[in-house]
C-alpha cells in the first residue's frame, strides 16, 4: 500500500516523503508523508507527529536526510534514527528586475535551496555576468514570463522592478497564481500607488493583502545584502506563520509544531 501510493506520487510529481526507521527492533517501519496526509506507523504517535513535521520541512527545501529523535518523537532524543527521503523538486524563486538587489537576492535564494530565475526585459541588465548566482537569467517582460512559468505554493515571487509599468501587470498575474510568497519592493508611497492601480484594475482586497510590501522584515536593511536577508527572513516567517521579531522578546516555542502547521 505504501509503495503503491509512493509510486503514484512520484509519477504525478506530487511532493512526498518516505520515512524509514533504520535501526532498533522496529527497524524498517515506514511513514509516508504528504502535504495533507500521512500513512503508516513508526511506532509511537509522538514519533509519527515529529517525523511528519520534519519530513514536511525537508520537502519544503527538497532535501533528503537522516534525523534522530527520542522514542516518542522528542526532538533532543537520539534513540531512534530515521531516514527521510524527500521527493520534491526544488521550489522556484522568480526575481523580477536585474538590479543590485537581485544579485544579492539570487545568492540568498540559492542558499535557501531555491532554483532562482532572474527576469528583466532589458538585455543589457539581464545577464549571467551581472547575476552570477542565478540558475537562470531570462530576458522577458515580467508579466508575460510569469503567465507561462510553473508556480506552486512553494514558489516565491520577488518583485524588485518598482516601476509601475512593470509592477501592475506583473502583480495582477502573480495574484492569479498559488505562489506562497509575493513581495514587492518600493516605498510605502510607491505601494499605496500600486494598491490604487491594482484596485482600479479589479483586484480584490483579499488578494491585495497577499502582497508583502514594502518587502521584507523590519530590520532596518540598507544594502542589497541586508535587504536580501530581510526578504529571505520574511519568506521563512510567512511560511511558518510567524511575525518575525526577536525570539528573546517572545514566548512562543522556537519551532512550530509541524504536525499542525502546513509548509505552504
Amino acid at each position, binding site marked *: *500500500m*505504501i*509503495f503503491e501510493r*509512493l*509510486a503514484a506520487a*512520484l*509519477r504525478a510529481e506530487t511532493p512526498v516523503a*518516505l520515512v*524509514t526507521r*533504520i*535501526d532498533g527492533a522496529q*527497524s*524498517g517501519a*515506514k511513514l509516508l508523508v504528504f502535504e495533507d496526509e500521512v500513512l*503508516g506507523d513508526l511506532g509511537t504517535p509522538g514519533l509519527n507527529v515529529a517525523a511528519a513535521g520534519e519530513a514536511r520541512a525537508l520537502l519544503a527545501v527538497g532535501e*533528503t*536526510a*537522516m534525523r534522530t529523535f527520542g522514542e516518542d518523537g522528542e526532538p533532543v532524543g537520539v534513540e531512534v534514527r530515521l*531516514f527521510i*527521503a524527500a*521527493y520534491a523538486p526544488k521550489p522556484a524563486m522568480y526575481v523580477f528586475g536585474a538590479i543590485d538587489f537581485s544579485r544579492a537576492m539570487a545568492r540568498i535564494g540559492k542558499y535557501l535551496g531555491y532554483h532562482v530565475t532572474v527576469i528583466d526585459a532589458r538585455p543589457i541588465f539581464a545577464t549571467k555576468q551581472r547575476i552570477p548566482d542565478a540558475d537562470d537569467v531570462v530576458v522577458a517582460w515580467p508579466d508575460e514570463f510569469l503567465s507561462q512559468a510553473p508556480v506552486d505554493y512553494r514558489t516565491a515571487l520577488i518583485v524588485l522592478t518598482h516601476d509601475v509599468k512593470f509592477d501592475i501587470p506583473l502583480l495582477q498575474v502573480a495574484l492569479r497564481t498559488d505562489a506562497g510568497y509575493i513581495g514587492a519592493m518600493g516605498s510605502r508611497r510607491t505601494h499605496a500607488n500600486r494598491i490604487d492601480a491594482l484596485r482600479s484594475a479589479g483586484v480584490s482586497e483579499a488578494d491585495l493583502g497577499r502582497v508583502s510590501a514594502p518587502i521584507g522584515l523590519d530590520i532596518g536593511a540598507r544594502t542589497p545584502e541586508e535587504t536580501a536577508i530581510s526578504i529571505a527572513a520574511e519568506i521563512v516567517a510567512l511560511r511558518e506563520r510567524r511575525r518575525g521579531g526577536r525570539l528573546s522578546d517572545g514566548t512562543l516555542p522556537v519551532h512550530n509544531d509541524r504536525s499542525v502547521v502546513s509548509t505552504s
Partner: protein
Amino acid sequence: MIDVLDTVERWRREGQRVAVATVVGVEKSAPRDPGAMLAVNERGDVAGSVSGGCVESAVYEEGQDAIATGRPRLVTYGISDADAISVGLTCGGTIHVFVERLDW
C-alpha cells in the same frame, strides 16, 4: 527511487519478491548521495546502484538475505571498516546502506 521505480513495479507484477538497498548516510566523499537505491529480486536481477560499482556485489548479497529472512539491516562500507578492504570502496568515503525486503 525514481530510477528503479519502473523495474521494481514490473518485478512485483511478475510476483517476484524484492529487496531495496538505500544509501542513508555518507561521510567524506561518496559517489552517490543519500537516497540512491539498488533493488534486487529473488531471481537475481539487479537495478540501480548505491556506490557506482564499489560495493554493489556485497549489497546484492545482503539484499538476497533480506528477501530470504525478511530481516532488515543497516550496513556500513568504508575505509575504516574491515569489510571495506574485501569489498573495496575505491572512492575512499564511508556509506551507510539500509537493506530491507520490500513488503510495505
